[in-house]
Every structure is written in C-alpha cells, then in structure tokens.
C-alpha cells in the first residue's frame, strides 16, 4: 500500500472517529427523541413499518401455554387503579363518517374475537393470557373511517393516559378493544371495563381504561411515549 493511500485511510479513520464522537455528544439519554437517538428512532420507525405485514398473524397459543394467574403482572400509572365513571361508554371520534358511543352491551353484541398470544413487555418479559373483545377494525368499519385518517389515538378515562398508533397496526386482526381476560370479565387491575389489546405492539401501547378512540390525520404522543419511550414499539 502506498504512503498516500495509507494516509487517506488514516484520515478516513480519524474522520469516522470524529463522527462517532459527534454522535455521542448528540446522544442524550434523558431526551431520547432528540439528537442522534431521535434520528435513529425515525429510521427504526420506517424499518418497523416496512417490516410490518398487516396480514401476518401472531401464533394463537394453546390453553396450556397461558401464564399462571399472578404471573401476568398488572401495572398502574397512578396511585390507585382507577374505576370507570358513571355512565361510561366508548366514544369513537375524529375522521369518521358516523361518530359512535358504544356501551359495554353494545360492544358485546358486536362480533366477538378471542385471542391467546404472547405478550411482550418493554421490560423484557413475556407472558400469555387470553382476551375477548371486538376487533378495532370492526369498530372502524361501523364508524366509517375517512381515508385521510392515518393514525389512531386511544385515550383513557384516567387523566393523562393515552397512546397514538399507526392506523395499520390498529386495524390488525389481532388488535382488540377487550372486555374479557382469561374467560372472565376484565378485572380493574387489567383495565376494566375496556382496554386495548394487541399482538403487534409492546404492552405499554395497550391503553387501559379506554374511553375514546380517535381517528386522526397526524400522530400524537402518549403517556409513555412523551416520557421518552419509543413511539412505534411494534413487535
């Protein structure tokens, strides 16, 4: 190797080391949506969208794979598990032809979907439960979603608790508004009377104590997302 190209190599090496250092400066663990980490989150967002197949189903698991009661942890964001306000009903709003208000009885009259899939938590654990509810795609069909809607925002009646999703994941056949868990009515710890459940997202995207589903042209944030957790969070 001639001295000239050798020097070129060293210069290239120094340049790339400089770039890495620059990237390091722009990596702020407390503001992970900004700087280089934020840039790469947007790259990963595209990667995840490209990989997502709306027709690919997560394997439905046999009953024997279900986690023992107590091995499926319940998390809460406030001091107590909230209870539903009197007269609770799910509102379907935003870019829809027919805004809906659906009580639990209305939802139970809609086609019931049962799913038992592996649950993936952002913390790294997995567990299995079965869920009963209505496909969000069915709710969307009833409401008549405008083609301009690209995102769905799920809001809880627990103040400040919400999450924004891409429309494709929300309309996946294994994304439900669930009122039942493991054959029983949903318990308060798990989001009664109604929660979001999906095979294609990490657990923190599945809003509990659901009050409103809004079809929107833009993506918003979420309770966990605004703290710094990744927005797309597909599995």
């Amino acid at each position, binding site marked *: *190797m001639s001295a000239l190209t*050798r020097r070129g*190599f*060293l210069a*290239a*090496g120094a340049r*790339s*080391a400089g770039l*890495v250092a620059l990237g390091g400066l722009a*990596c702020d*663990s*407390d503001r*992970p949506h900004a700087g*280089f*980490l934020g*840039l*790469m*989150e947007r*790259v*990963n967002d595209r990667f*995840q969208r490209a*990989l*997502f*197949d709306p027709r*690919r189903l*997560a*394997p439905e698991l046999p009953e024997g794979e279900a*986690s*023992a009661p*107590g*091995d*499926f*942890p319940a998390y809460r964001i406030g001091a107590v598990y909230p209870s539903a306000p009197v007269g609770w009903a799910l509102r379907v709003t935003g870019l829809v032809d027919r805004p809906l208000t659906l009580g639990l009885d209305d939802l139970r009259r809609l086609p019931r979907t049962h799913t038992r899939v*592996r649950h*993936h*938590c*952002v*913390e*790294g*654990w*997995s*567990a*299995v439960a079965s869920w009963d509810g209505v496909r969000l795609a069915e709710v969307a069909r009833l409401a008549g979603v405008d083609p301009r809607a690209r995102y769905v925002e799920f809001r809880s009646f627990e103040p400040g608790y919400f999450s924004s999703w891409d429309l494709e994941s929300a309309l996946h056949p294994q994304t439900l508004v669930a009122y039942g868990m493991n054959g029983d009515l949903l318990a308060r710890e798990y989001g009664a009377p109604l929660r979001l459940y999906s*095979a*294609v997202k990490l657990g923190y995207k599945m809003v509990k104590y659901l009050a409103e589903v809004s079809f929107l042209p833009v993506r918003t944030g979420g309770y*966990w997302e605004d*703290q*710094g*957790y*990744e927005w797309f969070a*597909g*599995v």
Partner: protein
Amino acid sequence: MLPELQAATRPEARRLERRPPQPAFIRATHWVNLVLITLMAGSGLGILMAYPRLGPRGQDYGWYPLQGVKPPAALTVGGWLAGARHWHFAFAWLFVANALVYLVYFAASGEWRRRLFFPRRDARNAWGTLLHDLHLRRTAPPPVGLYNGMQRLTYTGVLAVAPLLVLSGLALYKPVQLPHLAALLGGYDAARAIHLLVLGALGLFTLVHVVQVALHPRTLVDMTLGGRPGAEEAS
C-alpha cells in the same frame, strides 16, 4: 498458509505476504467495533436491568445462575430503560454496518486465509499452544504466519457466534414480524437467553484477549499502526 491454497493461488499468497499484519481496513473496523460493541453491550445490560431474569414470566430457566441479579450500573449505558433502548436500537445499525464492512473486506481481500482456523494447518498448533498456556508443555509452537492455532481457533469462534448475537437480537426486536427466526431460536424467551449468553461468551473472550494483548504489546502496536509486512515470519 495451507499447502493446497498456496498451490492454487500463489500470486495471491505472495500479495498476502507483502501486506502488513493488520491492514488498514482491519484496524479501522476493529477499533470502530470496540466503540460500538461497548455501547451495544452497555445499553443491552441497561435493558436487562428492567427484568434481570431469563425464561417466560413465572417460569424462570433453572440453569441460569443469575436470576434476579441486576448487572452493575457502572457497566450500563443509557441511564434508564427508554434511554438504553434508544441507544441499543440506534447503534445496532452502525454495529452491523461496521461488521459488514469488515466481512466484505475479510472475504474479498483473502485475509480469511491467514485468519480463519483450518484444522490441517492449525489443529496441532492450537493444541500445542493450549498445553503451553496451561504450563503442561515447556515450549510454545511457533505461530504459523500471522497467528498461532489457538488464536485462529478463538477468532474464528468469535466470528462464528457473533451472527447469533445479531439474529437473536432481531428475533427479540420483532418476534411477531420475524416468526421463523424467533421459532428457529426456540421462541422469544430462548432468543433472549441466547442474546445474553453470546454476550457473556464475547465478554469472556474480550477478557482473555486483553490479557493476551497485555502480555504481547506488539500486537497492540500492530493493530494501531499496521506493523511491518512479513514481520510475523521473523518472530
């Protein structure tokens, strides 16, 4: 050099002899890799902090001795779970890109000939070196060209398991969208165990590697400046 390779590709063999022990591509990717794998391991351990157990929830793997033991915070990168995840998924791309540059150079330049473990060339030498290192034999067999057999065996082992690190990582990132990969590795929780075990193996390698480099400082100079072509024959 393998006799059969030498016969088949004599001009190429001669070109290899004129090359410095550590060509610029190898040096650059080696040091970039050191930075990147440090960030990947640190942020990976940061993610492990959130759930330092292996096995499905409630069914911890019995063979893993460190159930519930958090890695030391000093070894982690990212500060908190969301931060660590952003570091991990941001630098994963750079880690893989650097590895691909290395592999393309490794294959195209013919460097693999003097670096990979070939039993006919290296097995006896590796055994002799091992006996010497264990103080069961007085003299060490001389290196065959660039490395001794034990070095080739170890470096080849690292190259063999490193892809498993990336593949198990992909299976953890996308267990639903890459179902065949996850199934091939035994499912989500098995992939998580593999991911950590390979990291452990590479950590062990790094420990031995650093000790060996400290015992043979010339190798550090060569990995930084390249070294003199043909110098290894003299040693």
